Every structure is written in structure tokens, then in C-alpha cells.
């Protein structure tokens, strides 16, 4: 069973009265444990494809399934449940909950999963340690650097033991050293836990780190290479 299966997926947006085809009958299969980069210029459809794979948006045509679960007949609540249990997100601009500390941001996901207080605290700290944020548990997002915030976001995405992580330009707002370090962390997680990663990026460093590079242009996949 594929981790992700997208078949003839289309997405059309309206910009005023003009129809913009963001995705045009895109098909993509991703096996469990893959480390995939979706590359391409702005407007090529990378983020749209990631959003559709994550159930954050509905396609106008085609079918999507994650771990064999078809999105077609799922409600917004079912999709939220699926994301909570199987999909982790890392966003370009971190998107942490500003009123929570680093630890609380990570812990909150475990709470949503119904984990007990002591256990979730232990797991949250262990995950923050794993991403190199020992001792920064009580800092709020505003008290952390961009790189540190993105690490918290990665910890948040990984703590629920998802099978799939979707990362939308995770290094775009980071300097090269921080970006490289973050990428290394994610690669370790991929190898250590067998988590499937799909990135959207136009950062060459990320493209080089990927084990499979899917190139997109004008809403279509133009190349798909396994390294």
C-alpha cells in the first residue's frame, strides 16, 4: 500500500473572473519511508499538491488517498482525525501557537490524541531533545529564533508518530546553516522512524538531500527522478 496515492488530481482557482489551473491531472505515488522533494518555481502547484495530499483542500477532480484511505467521502472532522493520527505538517512560516511554550506546542498534539499528562510531557521533551532544543521547553515562539521555531514545528509534526510528514518549503525562512541542520534532523527522523517525508521546495540544498525529486511546472509533473 502506498503512503500517498494521487490520481489525475486537478485544482482550479478563480482569480476574479479568471480561472487559474493550479493542478492539471497530476498523478503521484509515494511509497512508505520515501524522502521526496517536490521542486519547481512559484506557481508550479507544489503547495497546492501538498495541501490536497494533507486534506487541507478539496480537489476539483481526481482521487487522493493516504495509507489507503480515500479522501472522497471524508468529512472535515474525519480529515482532521486522519491528520492528527497519520500526517504531520511543517510550514514555511512555522505556524506555532503563539500563546503556548515550545513544550506546550508539542504536547498539545498528544493531548488531542488523548495521551495522559505525564506521558505527553515526557514524549514532548524527548522530541524537543531529539530536534536539538534541550532546555528551551518553556520558551514561547516569540522567544525563539526562526530555526528554533522550525525545529519546534518539526517536533510537533513528529511527536504523534505520523506515517507521513508534509513540509511546505521548510527551509525557506532559514539561513543555510540552520536549514542544513534542520534537514539533517528530518533525514535522521526518516531513517530512524521510517516516516515518509514530502517537501515542497525550490532550495537546491533540499533537492540534493531528497532521495526522490519530483519536478513540477504549470500545475503538472514534468520530471520524477529517484536518486
Amino acid at each position, binding site marked *: 500500500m502506498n503512503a500517498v496515492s494521487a490520481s489525475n488530481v486537478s485544482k482550479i482557482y478563480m482569480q476574479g473572473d479568471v480561472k487559474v489551473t493550479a493542478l492539471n491531472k497530476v498523478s503521484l505515488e509515494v511509497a512508505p519511508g520515501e524522502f521526496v522533494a517536490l521542486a519547481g518555481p512559484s506557481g508550479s502547484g507544489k503547495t497546492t499538491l501538498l*495541501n490536497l495530499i*494533507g486534506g*487541507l*483542500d*478539496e480537489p476539483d477532480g481526481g482521487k487522493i488517498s493516504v495509507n489507503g484511505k480515500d479522501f472522497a467521502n471524508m468529512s*472535515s*472532522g474525519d480529515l*482532521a*482525525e486522519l*491528520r*492528527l*493520527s497519520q*500526517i*504531520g*505538517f511543517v*510550514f514555511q512560516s512555522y*505556524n506555532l*501557537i*503563539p*500563546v*503556548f511554550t515550545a513544550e*506546550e506546542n508539542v*504536547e*498539545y*498534539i498528544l*493531548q*488531542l490524541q488523548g495521551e495522559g*499528562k505525564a506521558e505527553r510531557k515526557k514524549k514532548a521533551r524527548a522530541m524537543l531533545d531529539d530536534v536539538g532544543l534541550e532546555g528551551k521547553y518553556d520558551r514561547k515562539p516569540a522567544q525563539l529564533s526562526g530555526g528554533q521555531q522550525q525545529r519546534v514545528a518539526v517536533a*510537533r*509534526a513528529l511527536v*504523534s508518530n505520523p506515517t507521513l510528514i508534509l513540509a511546505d518549503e521548510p527551509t525557506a525562512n532559514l539561513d543555510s546553516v540552520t536549514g542544513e541542520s534542520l534537514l539533517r534532523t528530518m533525514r535522521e527522523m526518516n531513517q530512524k522512524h521510517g516516516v515518509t517525508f514530502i517537501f515542497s521546495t525550490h532550495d537546491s540544498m533540499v533537492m540534493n538531500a531528497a532521495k526522490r525529486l519530483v519536478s513540477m511546472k504549470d500545475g503538472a509533473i514534468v520530471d520524477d527522478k529517484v536518486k
Partner: protein
Amino acid sequence: MGDLKLAWRNIWRHTRRSILTMMAIGFASLLLVFMLSFQFGSYEGMIDASVRLSTGHLQVQAQGYHDKPEMRKVVKNPRKVMDALSRTPGVEACTARCQTFVLASSEDRTRGVMIMGVDPETESRVLKTSSLIRQGEYLSSDDPNTVIIGALLAERLKIGLGEELTILGQARDGSIAATVMTVRGIFKSGIDEVDRSTVQMLLTDFDQLFGMDGAVHAVVAVVHKLTEVGEIKNTVMQDDALKGLAVLDWMELSPGLKQSIQMDLVSGIIMYVILIIVVAFSIMNTFLMAVFERTREFGVMMAIGVKPLRLVKIILMESMFMTGLGLLFGMILGALLTQYFAGAGISMGGAADLMAQYGISGRMYPRLSLITLFSGPILIGVVTFFTALLPALRIPRLKPANAMKAV
């Protein structure tokens, strides 16, 4: 716990805005507690003034007398009834009274009047008529064959102190009752209807003149606390001494007073509803802002697996925290303010002297009760809950991907 913590901290993201909203809720709550207490206190003052001028809080009468007052419908043994009332906890004082309609004539003119037979000793403990005398003196057991009359009636009959008033009526047995009495005092209650048509005489004189044979038309009682009238009425009705008699409370005796209070209450409620609507808009503004400016955040939270209804719950928790704090603040201040004025009273200004002349206190005393303390704030709580619910219900309609694009 995480949702509660999140909701609590979200309130303090915009401290000034949250405090202003809480203050609006608190101020409305304070106003409602105080105004309702003031309104209820003023009703008590009105009721007290009214019952002590005429009806008393409770009356024991013969069955059917209130609906159709007839001379022969009497309380045969008033002493027994007064004893029963006197031993009932909460009853302050009681008195017996007779009344009928007669023709009253001066030298020049004749008028139809209500003549009442009262016992001056017990009557003055129950009602305030003795304090309303403007000329002469109140009735005295030592001075029989005298009457006091209303000021307007004295004017119409062109009669003054020491002059004679001829009374002509029908006795209890149907025979003619006629006598001549001397005017001992002139009173002014401030109620034209009373001042124009009321004459009082000694109960003993009334008994003799109308052949009452010791019977009376009503035993009138006042109680210590207005709120206990219903309870006392129920207790009194169980007493064997009152078997076969009717016990009426002030609302049955003065339906007009009850209606005027109800009308005033309705106009007050309209004002309060307007106040609550203003507060509701303030709350709605706050939560519309909260939902609009946090649309992106809601998108992210949905992306990480928070169900839309859980977000609605968080927003409602924020609303309830703010409302709860505002209400608590308003209720505490409202209660303190009310308690202060419940002791000190609020002067009615220029009307105070006028009111004092009629035995009504020139100061109004707000009265704090569970109803005045909780009814307004609970209503605000319910309204703000639904006001916050409207913007919160936008959240389930959001698509995470679109929400995350919001600025």
C-alpha cells in the same frame, strides 16, 4: 486542560481589548444589579406606603365581601381572628375595621361617602392615618361621637373643625342608621379618591350606630417583611379561628398597585434589554475580530488535527472566561454599591418633603436579593454566549488551506 489553558491565554493576547470588553460586561452587570435592586426596593416602598395608608398587607374578611361588599357579610368574632393573627410569626400588628357607604351632610351640602369604624389604638399601629392629620386631632376613644374627614371632602361639604356632620345610612339589620357627629380632625393622604370620600369614626360608635353587634368587616394586618406575605397568608389560612373566612393579600386588595408595578417592571425590562443588546454588540465585535484576525491560526490548528468543533469550543471558552470575569466584577461592585445605598438610602430630592407629608419615606432604599443579584448577569451571560457563538460558527465553514492564506 490544554484547551482551557489555550482559551485563557488567548484572552490576554490583546489585553486592552479584552479588559475593555470585560469592563463593558461588568458595567452592564453592575447597572443591572443596582437598577433592579433599586426598582424592587422602590416597589417595596410604594407597596409599604400604599398598604399602610389603606389596605394593610393582609385582610381577613367574610367570604365574598371583597367582590361584593355588603353590610351583612361580617367577621363575627374579630377578637378570635386578631388573636390568631397576633400569634402568627411575622405579623407586626392587626386591627379590626368596619365600613359602609352613607350620606354625609353638612349644613349646606350632602355627599355620598365611605365611613369607616376604626379602633384608634390598634389602627395607629397598623396604618398611618393618624400621621396624616392636617387640622385638629386623630380619633380618640375618650372622645366619642367624633369623626375625621378627608380634606377634599371637608372643602366640598364646606365643613370645618368642631362643626357637625350628619350621617345617614343603613344598619346591618336593614333599618335606618342616622346620627350627628362632630368633626375632630381633617386628614390629607395625598390620594384624592381617599381624601374626597372618606370619613373615619370610632369602631364603638360604628358598632352602635349600625348595629354590628361586635362584628366587623375586616381584620387588617401588616407584616414585618413584604416578602413573607405569601408565607404568612398560607400559615394564617390554616388556623381554625379563620375557618370559613377569606384571607386576602395586598395584591388582591390593591390590584391597581400590582398592575402599575408590573407596567413599571416591563418598561424597566425594555431598558435593560437595550442595555444588554449594546453589550452584545461589543462582545460580537470582539469575537468577530478574534475570529477574523486568527483565521490563519485556525487554519493551522485544523491542519495539525484540531477538529473544527473543538475550535468553536475554544472560542466559546474564551467568551465564557471574559463574560465570567466581567460578570463577577460587575456583580461584586453592584452588590457593594447596592448594599451601601440599602443602608444610606437615595434621596428623592425635591419630592422627598412632599412624600414625607404623606408618611412615605423621602428616601428610596434599593434591596439586594438573589433575583436582583443573579437575574441580570445570568441574562447577560446567556446573550453573550450566543453572541460569541455566531462568529465562532464561521470556523467549521473554513477550509484549512484557504484559512492559512489569510493575512
